[in-house]
């Protein structure tokens, strides 16, 4: 029983650490639905076992052993969730509670079996990464949908709440990890207008703050696919950088000044034989003619 409690705590601390460091007893008490004194007791126990660093009134942080253990539990939890939805066909709002029970009763062999069935899948149904068997986890992007400035096209990554009611509501709207939506407008009351498959929906702030998302770059189609040297781009025109040449030294300089493949560049000034002036990543940069000949670009319509 105790080992189960320990695992629950480690899991809870791990999840909280993404947002606050060190994790306070009050947030843990809220997450685990137990009293604060109970949390304090348990944190003492965990510290004695060397799983966390704990300072009263400040809070707790996982040690590396503690973090390893937490990741192992999280791995089993998320594998089970996947198994329950994908193999057994359960609804995604039900699987969290089931997985919470199963994760503590999973033998290493069972875990191997699960990951064998689920090979190639690296996230749980709610979009969170599954740690690998060595305890490595792909870092998750943590920008919330509510934080994006309209207008912006974004891809939903994960849902940060296991509450079945919230999950059902989100499912009803058609939102799930991987879906691309356009953020249209932020309203006074904090709600967000978005467009999903040509349909406009309004999300309240509570919903949009449990979804994480990443921007989807809008790339307008290039007008001419042929690669030309940057030096040949006429003033006022835009281009996408393809290859950045130059020796080791100037390459490093170019890269740190933002001349990376895929970056959009605007030619500001380009007079015969002199250096050229371009705008890249919101700054004007002057580059010598020789270097400009070594950067190849593809012309692009103004955006």
């Amino acid at each position, binding site marked *: 029983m105790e080992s189960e409690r320990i695992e629950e705590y480690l899991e809870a601390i791990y999840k909280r650490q993404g947002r606050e460091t060190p994790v306070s007893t009050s947030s843990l008490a809220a997450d685990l639905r137990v009293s604060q004194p109970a949390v304090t007791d348990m944190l003492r126990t965990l510290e004695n076992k060397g799983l966390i660093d704990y300072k009263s009134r400040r809070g707790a942080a996982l040690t590396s052993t503690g973090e390893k253990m937490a990741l192992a539990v999280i791995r089993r939890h998320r594998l089970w969730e996947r198994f329950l939805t994908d193999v057994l066909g359960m609804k995604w709002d039900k699987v969290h509670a089931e997985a919470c029970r199963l994760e503590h009763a999973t033998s290493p062999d069972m875990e191997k079996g699960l990951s064998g069935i689920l090979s190639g899948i690296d996230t749980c149904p709610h979009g969170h990464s599954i740690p690998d068997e060595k305890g490595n986890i792909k870092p998750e992007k943590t920008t919330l949908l509510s934080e994006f*400035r309209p*207008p912006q096209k974004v891809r939903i990554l994960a849902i940060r709440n296991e509450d079945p009611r919230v999950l059902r509501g989100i499912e009803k709207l058609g939102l799930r990890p991987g879906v691309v939506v356009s953020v249209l407008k932020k309203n006074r009351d904090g709600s967000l207008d978005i467009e999903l498959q040509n349909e406009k929906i309004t999300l309240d702030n509570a919903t949009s703050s449990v979804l994480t998302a990443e921007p989807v770059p809008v790339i307008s189609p290039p007008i001419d696919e042929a690669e030309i040297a940057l030096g040949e781009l006429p003033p006022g025109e835009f281009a996408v950088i393809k290859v950045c040449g130059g020796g080791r030294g100037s*390459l*490093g300089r170019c890269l*740190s*000044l933002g001349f*990376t493949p895929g970056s959009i560049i605007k030619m500001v*000034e380009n007079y015969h034989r002199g250096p050229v002036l371009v705008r890249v990543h919101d700054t004007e940069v*002057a580059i010598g003619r020789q270097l400009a000949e070594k950067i190849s670009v593809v012309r692009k319509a103004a955006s």
Partner: protein
Amino acid sequence: MSESTKTREITVALAGAPNVGKSTIFNLLTGLSQHVGNWPGKTVEHKTGVFRQGELTMNIIDLPGTYSLTANSVEEQIARDYLVHENPDVVVAVLNAASLERNLYLVAELIELAPRLVIALNMLDVAEQQGMKIDSEALSRTLNIPVVPIVARANRGLRELVTQVEQECNTAAGLRNVKHIEYGSEITDVIDHVDRLLEDGITARYPKHWTAMKLLEGDEQINKLIKARMPAERWPALDSYLREHESAAVTIATLRYEWVERMMAVAQQKRRVGQVSLTEKIDRAATHPVLGIFMLIAILGAMYWLVFSIGVPVQQFLDVNLIERTRDFIYTLSYMPQWLQGFLADGVLSGAGTVLTFIPILFFFFAAWAFLEDTGYTSRAAFVTDRFMHALGLHGKSCLPLVLGFGCNVPAIFGTRIIDSPRARLLTILLTPLVPCTGRMAVIAIIAAAFFGSAAVLISIGMIILSLLILAIVGLILNRFVIRGKSSALIMELPLYHVPDLKLIGMVTWQNILAFIKRAGTVILAVSILVWLLSVIPNGNINNSILSDIGRWLEPLGRLMGLNWQMMVALLSSFVAKENTIATLGVMLSGSSGDFTQQLKAILTPAAAVAFLVVQVLFIPCVATIAAIRQETGGWKWPALVLVFQMVLAFAVAIPVYQVLRLFPGLFFSFCTVLPS
């Protein structure tokens, strides 16, 4: 709070790209407590200062401005070595909100090396003028790093910054779950592979994983370090793996910019399209190949006008009223032994004292320089002159220091610090003494006026053209044959124009003047006393002193140019300060009859006078310039080379000039007399 935590001393490093207002913040926090020196063995400014508030003492260090932490330049190497070796308690990343995208790239790198990071988001007002709106709170939330909005120019937000830094110190290092940038699994595997090829401890002080990444990024310094530390038999495996994955450098930088873009999506409201900013409007003229040159000439013209209409009269006033009068005063003190009078009046005052009277002139040059730097104009000047400078293996950025050299070579040599390529910088330093400074031009004007009347102006202009011609030829030769290495390509940011920060300009000017006074008090004083000693030993009369012996010994050489020993002594004395030539001639000729012009005509033929002007304009630079070269090149090698080279050059040009003019005296004199007087 316990007793021990009451007084706290913490170290805070300011990091940031150039043109983000880092120096302004540093000045506001440290005021006059700052100490400016050089980083050990480097010619990059090392600035430290102290900020005290209540029980808190903050030792602040201003790291050199860098765009990244890959060792593309000395500055970048210094900045990251400082972070790794000195472990500052908190690193404050100063970002320019108006070019946040570029600046966040540095943050992506700092996150990996700085355990505690606070972001000072500066110039929010400028960003707003550009039509950008930055949400600093959203940025802070998404990065999980405190972000303090400030407007350093208006001294807004600094108190909050200090509070935030102090608070950050209370959190245990590394506890904050800072959002590291997400390198995709593909590149992570490659980095991990390199990591495994490195044995433990070999990267000491640098984090191992970070080292692996820098090796892949093609960082030469790290590459050399690992090669030196690694057992020779294991290096080829690593080296070939790195070569195989050469494209990783581009991938890593691209991923960092993708990360930056994600942060931007959160922090920035889209920029209003179609708005032409003030910077763009000014730049239409300032960076135009023709208009830009005119603008540059106009700005420099205004600068010289200021210097000559205010600085020069003040210098002359000081020279006459302070130096001359004090000298006369010293000679009236009859209770003082004669040798002491001579030492004070002719050794200290005429030498180092005269040099000090140049401070008003230097003040204008240093201030004008700081002004142009701070407004953002310097990089435009570099842009429009790049095409001309390139031929000499120089950089666009070499132009301004060289132009500054017309005023005084000393600030010009310090001005070369803006050139980031070490090779172009060295070339510029070596060429600067060939630019005729006001001191040289003063001597030329006096002697030309004495000899050539109305042709004096033409002769003076001729001298300027001659030295610039020689400068170009020497530049071509140095570039092609002497200093090895390829000329580096120009790549620089053109910052937005902004209203200059007068306090900052004042501070920079003050520090430069202070450094000049220090030099005048040491090296220049020593040399002027030495020259004085040579002129009075053994019996107090310059005409049979050691100096005159040296002059007589040099006379055979002088005769090739039509110069007698007195002219040679006058030439030698210009080493202390260029205008000393006239003073020395004055002293030596004081025994003969007539006024100065007649005395000169008695010992010089017109052809010899021209030769003297040539040798004077090309002769070794003054001791202040030599001291500056030594300081900026970090040793005696280059100043010694400059001394020898210019000595040889001066004679090598002046001798043929004299010989040719002597052969065709008629031609030369008809030229002089044809001109209306």
